[in-house]
C-alpha cells in the first residue's frame, strides 16, 4: 500500500470557516431574542426569508462560477451576511427590500468580486447602503416598539399593507427623532426627558438591543473568533468624540453613553466591523481601522444626512484596510526596531 505523504503539519485544530460562522450566528441570538421580545416576530420572518434567499443566490452564483457547491454552501458565510443585513433594516420592511438587499450583497458585493475571501467591502453593508440610497422612505420607517405576532408580521412584510396600516406601526428611530428635535432648537436633555421613546441611556429598545449584541460580541472575543482590537478601538473613539463635543456643548451634543447605546453601534462594533475579509488584519492595523470607524460613525451621525453612520463608516474604512495593513506590519522577531 502506498503511503500518504502530505506536507507538515500533520495535525490540525478542530476549526473551520463553517465553525467560525456558526459561532457568529450563535452570538447574534441574544440580540435576536431581544428583537422578538421588543418587536415581535417580524425579525424571525425576515431572517428566515433572507436565509433562504441568500442560500439560493449563493448556490446560483457558485454554479455560474463553476465552484463546488457543498463546501461553500455549508460554510455559513452567506447566512451571516443575510442576518447582518436583516438586523440593519427595519424588522417590518417589505419583502422586496430584504430581497434586493440580499441579492445586492451576495451577487454583487460577494460573488462578482470573486466570492468568499475576495470581497473588499462588507457585503451586508453594501446591500444596506444600496437600499438606504435607493429606498430612504422604507429604510427609515422603523417599527414602533410593540410586539407583533407571526401572522401580523408576515402580512406586513409580504402583503404590502396600505399606508395607514403601516403608519400605525412605524415611527422614527430615537436617533432620528433626536436629530429632528435638535433641529427645532431643543436641548438633548429636553428631548430625552420628554419622549417615551427614550430609556435610561438612549432609545428604550435600542439600549436593550445594544446590550444584547454587546454580550454576544464579548462571547465572540472570548471564543477567539474576533480580536478585541476593532470593537474596543471603535467604541473608544466613538465615546471620546462624543465626550469632547458633549463637554463642549451638552445641550446640542448627546453624551457618550447615548452614542454607545444607540443605533447599530454594538452590532457594528462586534459583528460588522470585524468581518475578517474586509477588515484590517494586523494588530495595530485593527486599532486604527476600528478607531477610524468610530470617528466616522460620530461624524456621520452628528453632521451627516443619514440616520446611522455604521454602514458608511465601515465601507469607507474597508477601502483603507489594505493600506492600513501595509503600514502596520508587525515587527518580525529578530529584526530590531527599525524594520
Amino acid at each position, binding site marked *: *500500500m502506498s*503511503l*500518504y*505523504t*502530505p*506536507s*507538515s*503539519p*500533520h*495535525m*490540525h*485544530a478542530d*476549526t*473551520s*470557516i463553517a*465553525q*467560525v460562522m456558526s459561532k457568529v450566528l450563535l452570538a447574534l441570538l441574544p440580540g435576536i431574542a431581544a428583537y422578538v421580545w421588543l418587536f415581535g416576530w417580524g425579525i424571525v420572518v425576515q431572517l428566515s426569508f433572507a436565509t433562504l434567499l441568500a442560500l439560493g443566490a449563493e448556490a446560483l452564483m457558485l454554479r455560474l462560477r463553476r465552484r463546488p457547491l457543498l*463546501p*461553500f454552501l455549508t*460554510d455559513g*458565510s452567506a447566512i451571516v451576511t443575510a442576518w447582518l443585513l436583516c438586523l440593519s433594516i427595519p424588522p417590518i420592511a417589505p419583502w422586496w427590500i430584504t430581497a434586493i438587499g440580499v441579492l445586492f450583497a451576495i451577487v454583487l458585493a460577494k460573488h462578482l468580486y470573486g*466570492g*468568499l*475571501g*475576495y470581497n473588499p467591502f462588507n457585503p451586508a453593508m453594501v446591500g444596506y447602503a444600496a437600499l438606504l440610497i435607493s429606498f430612504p422612505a422604507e429604510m427609515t420607517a422603523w417599527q414602533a416598539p410593540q410586539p407583533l405576532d407571526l401572522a401580523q408580521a408576515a402580512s406586513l412584510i409580504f402583503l404590502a399593507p396600505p399606508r395607514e396600516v403601516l403608519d400605525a406601526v412605524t415611527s422614527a428611530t430615537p436617533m432620528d427623532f433626536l436629530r429632528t428635535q435638535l433641529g427645532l432648537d431643543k436641548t438633548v436633555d429636553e428631548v430625552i426627558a420628554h419622549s417615551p421613546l427614550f430609556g435610561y441611556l438612549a432609545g428604550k429598545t435600542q439600549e436593550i438591543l445594544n446590550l444584547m449584541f454587546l454580550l454576544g460580541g464579548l462571547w465572540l472575543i472570548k471564543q*477567539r473568533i474576533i*480580536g478585541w482590537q476593532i470593537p474596543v478601538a471603535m467604541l473608544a473613539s466613538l465615546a471620546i468624540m462624543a465626550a469632547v463635543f458633549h463637554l463642549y456643548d451638552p445641550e446640542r451634543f448627546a453624551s457618550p453613553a447615548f452614542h454607545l447605546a444607540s443605533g447599530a453601534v454594538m452590532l457594528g462594533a462586534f459583528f460588522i466591523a470585524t468581518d*475578517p*475579509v474586509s*477588515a484590517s*488584519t*494586523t*494588530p495595530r492595523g*485593527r486599532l486604527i481601522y476600528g478607531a477610524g470607524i468610530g470617528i466616522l460613525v460620530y461624524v456621520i451621525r452628528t453632521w451627516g444626512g443619514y440616520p446611522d453612520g455604521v454602514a458608511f463608516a465601515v465601507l469607507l474604512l474597508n477601502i483603507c484596510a489594505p493600506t492600513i*495593513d501595509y503600514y502596520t*506590519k*508587525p*515587527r*518580525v*522577531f*529578530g*529584526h*530590531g526596531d527599525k524594520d
Partner: protein
Amino acid sequence: MKRELFSFTGGIRFDDYHKRESTRQAVVAAPLPARLVLPLHQHIGEGGEALVQPGDKVLKGQPIARAVSYVSAPLHAPTSGTVVKVGDEKVPHPSGLSAPCIVIEPDGEDTWAPRQSHARDYAEMNPSALRNLIREAGIVGLGGAGFPSYVKLNPGHNPVETLILNGAECEPFITCDDMLMRQRADEIVKGSLIIRHALGARQTLIAIEDNKPEAIAAMRGAVQRLAPEHTEVVSVPTLYPAGGEKQLIYTLTGKEVPSDGLPVHIGVVCQNVATTGAIFRAVYHGEPLLSRWLTVTGGVAEPRNLEVLLGTPVDELIRFCGGKPERCRRIIMGGPMMGFALHAHDLPVIKTTNCILVDDGRQPDLAGRQYAMPCIRCGACADACPVRLLPQQLYWYAQAGEFDRCQEYHLFDCIECGCCDYVCPAHLPLVQYYRYAKGEIWKRERERQQAELARERHEFRLFRLEREKKERAAKRQQKKAALAKETSAQGDAQAKQAAIQAALERVKAKKARQTRENTPPEQGDS
C-alpha cells in the same frame, strides 16, 4: 529564587499532547535488525565520504565514513558485521529520493573496536581537542535539524554567557527526551559540564516544559548532586514551539537572536539534552554516536520509547511496538507539526530521528487535510505565528508567485513550525506554500547567480575582445608609427641618396658632356 521568564508571541497550546501513551514503559533496546542502512548524509551540511567497501568487516564503533568539510560529520558502524553495499538506497527525506548509503549486515557479536575514555582528563584538554573528539564521534544535534555539534561548540571570539540545554520537547507525541531526562539525568548533567568546559560558559540553564514534572524532578536531583553551582533547571510554560531555539532563548533571556545572526552572537549556545547525553558517552566512554532514543507512537498497540541502532528500518520498530506497517496510512518521521511523511515503510532511522508517529487511519488528531477554502483574512495565523510574520500575506504572495513580496514579508524568517497552518479555519496548506516559495526563490537565486556568472563571462569575453581589438589597434598604430619613422628615416636617406645621386648625376652629366664630346650620343641620358 524564581527566574524571570519572557513569553514569545503566538504559539499553540494543544488540548492533548499525547505524551502519556509513550511514557508508561521503560526504555528498552530494539532488536538487532538483519540489515542496517546508513545514509552518508544525515545532518545539516555536507555528507560524509565512505571509508569502507563491500566485503569489509567492521567492528562496532569503527569509522565507516569521514567528514569532508567543516560542517560535516563522520559515521560509525553501529554494530560489528560486514559491509554489503556502498551505494544508493532510499533514504528518509521529504523528497522520497535515494542517496548514497553504507549497508551493513550485523554478525550478531556486537564486538567493539577499541575505545578510549577521557572521563578523567577532559578537563585538562584544550577546547579545540575536546571539540575534535566530539567531531570524531559523529555527534550532530539530536533534537531535530542535526547540525554538527562541534561547530556549535566553537564560539570563535564571541564570549559565551549562557549554555542552554534544550529539554523543552514541545511537539505533541514525542517523549524520547523526556524519558532520557528521567532515566539518564546524571549523564546529561555530566555532558553539560563537558560542553561548558569547551565553551567557557558562565551559567547553564536546563529548560524543560512544565508538562514534564518527572523529568524536571530527575534533572533537579542530578544538578543537585553533580553541578549545584551555575546550573539551573528551568521549568518553562508548555507552549509550542517553546523548544524552537530562538523561542527558547527568548523565553529564558528576553533576547531575540537577530534574524541574520546566531545565538552565539548574543552570548548563548543551545544544545539538545540528547545531544548532551551523546557527548557524555563520547567523552567518558569513547563511544561514538551509534544509537539513539526515539518514540514509536500513534497507531501502534504499545507506544513506547526505544533505544535504536542507527540504520534500523522503521517498519521493524513499528512491528516491535505492536503495529502493522502494511496497514499504515502514513508514517511520520519526527513530530506531527514539523516531521515529514515517509515514502516507504522500511526507511532507516537516522541520527535526527526522534519519533516514528504512525497514522493507521484511526488517530483522530491525525485526520488529514480537509478541503481548502479561500483565506478569509481572519488573522488567526498571524496571532499564532511565533515569529510575528503575517502568514496570510505570505500565503497570498506565494500562491500568486510574487516571491519578491514574500521576501519583503520576511519569508526566510519562517521556521516552518506549522502554527499558522494548524489554526487556519480555511485549512490552507500554508507551510507547503512557504516551502514552495522558498524553493522557488533559491532556484531563482541560483539561476540568477548562474546568469550573473554567464553575464560576467560574456562581459569579460566582450571586454577581452575589445581589449584585444584595442591592443591590436594599438599595435597597428605602433607599427605604423614605427613604419612612418622608418619611412621618414628612409626619406632622409633617400634625400641624401638623391643628393648623392644628383651629385653623381651632375658628375656623370659633366662626364657625359665631356664624353659626348668624344663618344656617340646613345650612351647619353638614362
